[in-house]
């Protein structure tokens, strides 16, 4: 069999294809985005869509399942919060075609607003959850998830995480097999799918029965694996945590759970009989630990030594069990004192001038989820709250209601185009209806940028890059009752500042849309063609070293400490320098400079 190297997400996509999936829907979010991207790029047999948000993705997959085909929705951990409303009741109705929801967690919050542990959804929603540890298991477990879904009439959760989704390892490829099932909608099945109270109470019992059967199944599930080696020490683990533990203590015994809910209680009891000291190694919450303690077992170690926050790693697991016997590798220098390199907005990004303006206006900025969160870092420091998709819009309105007219001119909400469509419409609707006066700025860069350029209903293209309708943000604002709708071109600092200043001071709802400012990485929009010159440079005769251009935090601009004088006799402590390799010619620094010391490079 051919084995190829594949990223975990790529393997989940492959598993869906081999399982004969017909419909796949997702909203992008790190570390899950490559699942749908791979399906859209490689597997034309599967209908693939970027849904407007995760709840819609689960609705789409749920509808396809009801019509009889295998369907999958994928998202990051916080996406499941949005999708949970649909999931919690789909758990009652069960499925027709297999229905799998992939949730990718992000321990350590590499690229997220929190660190939640998605295993709780399985217990909360009463559905089975599988947890792969590498790419081969990503593919195998995805296929098994569809079988379990159909056999037990339940949605199945597949939990991945950063170190599974974004790790590459070898995968044995298989063929696609489409299940031979009749498709169609059946009006006679309403009592199973129509969740009005009378039917809910019936289904509630079915769900309990199903979970009992699944627990029995878990005891014989072939990916719940007991490895008995040294019987003095044993570890119960799952996912990538198992790999870390196995790496450092390969001689110990292991109970590796491929299914983390429901738990294989008989198997766990057996492991405790065979092994003297049993520890539990799991990332984030003491999920297994709480359940296993509740079964009455005495645990050797768990969260007393394994951290409940951030990611685990081989050395964290090793240190946890070895304690003082752990030999810390040699430290050659204290690297924490080196200059840090936080991520930054790209050179030429349209968010940079916009946030510079907001900072200069002294506004309190209600932020949202997207690249623009990078404007939080110094020296811009232009975002003051970030909670979840769409939250900035609703919170700005709430704050203005609390502050009354005192609040005018002091705050605004910002969110990206994709975020606006995902979760910004309901809070925006709330403002005119409730006679509010807050300002909402849509940073339209024509793509879902942070997660790597995914299409959305405003971008004009589908997941498969077919041209389609593009939502008109002005029309949305109008339809929702916003009267003051303005456009800004962020690269024009002066004009942008005037318009925003006017709008935040108005005692009525305002919607401001950034126009003609595509993501600098979105090639098809030819972002660089907007710029008159290919780059800018510092005129050393004029630069006074005032550092005003450094306030925009543009990657190519640096400060050279070197005392000197300008041509017209001003003493300076240093001067600015623009790295030609990185500058794209957006002209923002030129507008910021008060001494005309930044000039275009004319090729």
């Amino acid at each position, binding site marked *: 069999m051919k084995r190829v190297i594949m990223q975990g997400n790529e393997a989940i996509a492959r598993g869906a294809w081999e399982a004969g999936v017909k419909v796949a829907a997702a909203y992008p979010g790190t570390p899950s985005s490559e699942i749908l991207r791979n399906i859209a790029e490689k597997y034309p047999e599967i209908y693939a869509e970027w849904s407007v948000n995760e709840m819609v993705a689960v609705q789409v997959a749920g509808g396809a399942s009801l019509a009889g085909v295998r369907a999958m929705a994928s998202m990051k951990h916080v996406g499941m919060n949005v999708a949970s409303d649909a999931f919690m009741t789909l758990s009652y109705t069960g499925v027709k075609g297999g229905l799998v929801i992939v949730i990718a967690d992000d321990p350590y919050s*590499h690229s997220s607003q929190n660190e939640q542990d998605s295993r709780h959804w399985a217990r909360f929603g009463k559905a089975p959850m599988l947890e792969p540890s*590498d790419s081969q298991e990503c593919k195998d477990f995805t296929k098994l998830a569809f079988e379990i879904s159909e056999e037990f009439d339940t949605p199945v959760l597949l939990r991945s995480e950063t170190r599974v989704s974004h790790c590459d*390892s070898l995968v044995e490829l298989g063929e696609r097999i489409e299940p031979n099932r009749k498709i169609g909608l059946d009006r006679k099945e309403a009592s199973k799918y129509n969740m009005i109270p009378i039917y809910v109470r019936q289904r509630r019992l079915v769900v309990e029965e199903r979970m009992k059967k699944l627990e029995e199944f878990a005891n014989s599930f072939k990916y719940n694996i007991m490895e008995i080696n040294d019987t003095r020490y044993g570890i119960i683990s799952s996912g*990538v945590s198992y790999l870390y533990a196995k790496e450092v203590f390969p001689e110990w015994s292991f109970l590796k759970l491929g299914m983390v809910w429901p738990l294989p209680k008989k198997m766990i009891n057996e492991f405790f009989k065979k092994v003297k000291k049993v520890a539990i190694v799991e990332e984030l919450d003491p999920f297994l630990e709480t359940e296993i303690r509740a079964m009455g077992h005495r645990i050797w170690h768990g969260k007393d030594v394994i951290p409940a926050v951030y990611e685990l790693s081989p050395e964290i697991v090793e240190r946890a069990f070895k304690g003082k016997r752990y030999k810390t590798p040699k430290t050659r220098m204290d690297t924490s004192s080196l200059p840090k390199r936080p991520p*930054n907005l790209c050179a030429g990004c349209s968010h940079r001038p916009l946030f510079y303006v907001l900072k200069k206006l002294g506004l309190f900025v209600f932020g949202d989820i997207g690249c623009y969160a990078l404007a939080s870092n110094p020296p811009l420091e232009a975002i003051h709250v970030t909670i979840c998709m769409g939250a900035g819009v609703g919170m700005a309105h709430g704050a203005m209601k609390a502050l009354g007219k005192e609040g005018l001119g002091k705050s605004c909400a910002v969110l990206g185009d994709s975020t606006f469509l995902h979760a910004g419409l309901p809070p925006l609707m709330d403002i005119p209806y409730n006679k509010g006066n807050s300002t909402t700025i849509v940073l339209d860069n024509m793509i879902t940028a*942070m997660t790597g350029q995914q299409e959305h209903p405003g971008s004009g293209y589908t997941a498969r890059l077919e041209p389609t309708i593009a939502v008109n943000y002005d029309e949305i604002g109008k339809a929702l009752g916003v009267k003051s709708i303005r456009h800004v071109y962020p690269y024009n600092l002066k004009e942008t500042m005037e318009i925003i200043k006017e709008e935040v001071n108005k005692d009525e709802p305002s919607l401001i849309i950034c126009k003609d400012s595509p993501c600098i990485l979105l090639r098809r929009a030819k972002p660089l063609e907007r710029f008159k010159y290919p780059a800018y440079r510092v005129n050393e005769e004029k630069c006074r070293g005032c550092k005003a251009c450094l306030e925009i935090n543009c990657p190519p601009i640096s400060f050279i*400490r070197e005392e000197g004088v300008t041509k017209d006799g001003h003493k300076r402590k240093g001067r600015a320098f623009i790295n030609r390799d990185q500058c794209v010619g957006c002209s923002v620094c030129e507008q910021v400079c008060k001494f005309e010391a930044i000039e275009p490079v004319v090729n």
Partner: protein
Amino acid sequence: MKKDRTVTNIFLAGVGGQGTILASNIMGHVLSTAGFEVKKAEVHGMAQRGGDVVTHFRFGTKIYSPLIKYGDADYLIGFELLEGLRYINWLKNDGKVILNNQKMYPPAVNIGEMSYPDDIPGIFRSHFGKNNVYVVEGLEIARKLGNIQVANVVMVGAFSNFLPDLKEELWLEAIRNLVPERFQDLNIKAFQEGRRALG
């Protein structure tokens, strides 16, 4: 049990946008084609935007963890000098470091608050001896080839010298597989120049 396993750990460090992911993808393609088990781990998403990026790359007979254990890297490839230095403690005592002689100033240096460390190759030499520190003019080689973006593949070429059992053709095949056709020649040249630089 552990003793039967031979694993090589390579730690790649660079700046988001430098193309460390393509570099590690080429390595992954080559080593898996050569019959090794391979695991590699990296972080995508917001962490990429001009921030520091690292890849853990492991190959051998049997690999469990996708992450290299702290202090257990056989090789450290620094695609940028400061980023190489940031992970100096990840190298084994007898490890080797391959540095791209390129400086990219982080914000604190740009605004003049902190200074960029001096003579980073010298710091490595003082800890690992001069025979274990290799400096490659990755950026300059790429510039001469007409596109500074291929410095990453120059570094892959330089590193390929440390795996002498793998034929050049394997690497070129990986590049053909992973790079869009119109950039293949450029990337192959970049690889060959890098290979020659330390060859």
